[in-house]
């Protein structure tokens, strides 16, 4: 089980790195899906099978499909001039070295502490459901209202406003344009 965790963690980190550095948005999204699958394996190992399933169904299924849909709809080319200018080593090497020292500090501090193994107890979906709809009932209702607000907001923002111009005004607009030209 431990080796499975480490393999999945390595796959998740590598594919996330490839996702955030990819040039093509679709390829980056595919790497992100691989990363989500690896994270789902980790959730399964941690004893959260329900969360592992939700990770695949909602993240890799719904959210990523939304992303792919928008990218295909926009059909955009990549603009990378600014990014290429920013990615010159001279600009980021000093802060990266300093933050890396801090990261080493952090890891050493954690290594000094006594190790705590996880309980490894599998929490079945039934318990999660009971807790969600009894202890956290108010939270579930608020989450529902948030989703409603999300739907209304997405509809309002994503609507293409139709331009309605009266015949007379349209001619006037053309005349104005002609005089300007």
């Amino acid at each position, binding site marked *: *089980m*431990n080796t499975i*965790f480490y393999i999945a*963690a390595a796959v*998740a980190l590598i594919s*996330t790195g490839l*996702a*955030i*550095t990819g040039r093509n*948005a679709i390829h980056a999204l595919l790497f*992100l899906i691989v*990363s989500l699958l690896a994270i789902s394996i*980790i959730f399964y*190992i*941690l*004893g*959260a099978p*329900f*969360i592992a399933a*939700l990770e695949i169904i909602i993240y890799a299924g*719904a*959210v990523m499909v*939304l*992303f792919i849909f*928008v990218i295909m*709809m*926009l059909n*955009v080319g*990549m*603009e990378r001039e*600014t*990014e290429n200018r*920013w*990615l010159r080593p001279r600009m980021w090497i000093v802060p990266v070295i300093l933050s890396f020292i801090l990261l080493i500090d952090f890891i050493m501090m*954690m*290594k000094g*502490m006594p*190790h*705590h*193994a*996880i*309980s*490894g*107890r599998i*929490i079945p979906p039934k*318990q*999660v459901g009971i*807790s*969600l709809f009894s*202890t*956290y009932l108010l*939270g579930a209702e608020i989450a529902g209202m*948030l*989703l409603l607000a*999300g739907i209304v*907001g997405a509809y*309002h*923002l*994503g609507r*293409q406003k139709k331009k309605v111009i009266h015949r007379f005004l349209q001619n006037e607009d053309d005349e104005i344009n002609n005089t300007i030209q």
Partner: protein
Amino acid sequence: MVTIPVEIQLLFAALLFLMGLIGLLVRRNVIFILMSIEIMFNSAGMVFVIAGSYWAQVDGQVMFIFMLTVTAAEVSVGLALILQMFHHFKTLDADKLSNLKDTN
């Protein structure tokens, strides 16, 4: 039986969050920025699940479900905003949107 120390798992979640943060800071494409936010959300939720697994309680997983709801709402509104932005400015570069008013 799983015997991975909880520190390693928290470190993994922190590294994932860090990758999302780097992507958010470095990339200028709005779609990539939104993807990086997704990665960060995911790693934050993972910390909840790790803590829930450590204490053998269900609360961590319930919190992850709430976080999933927030993410879904955020993504739908964010992608609608991206659509509007592309419709108005014909670009996805976040730097081109630094003005409040149209200059052209």
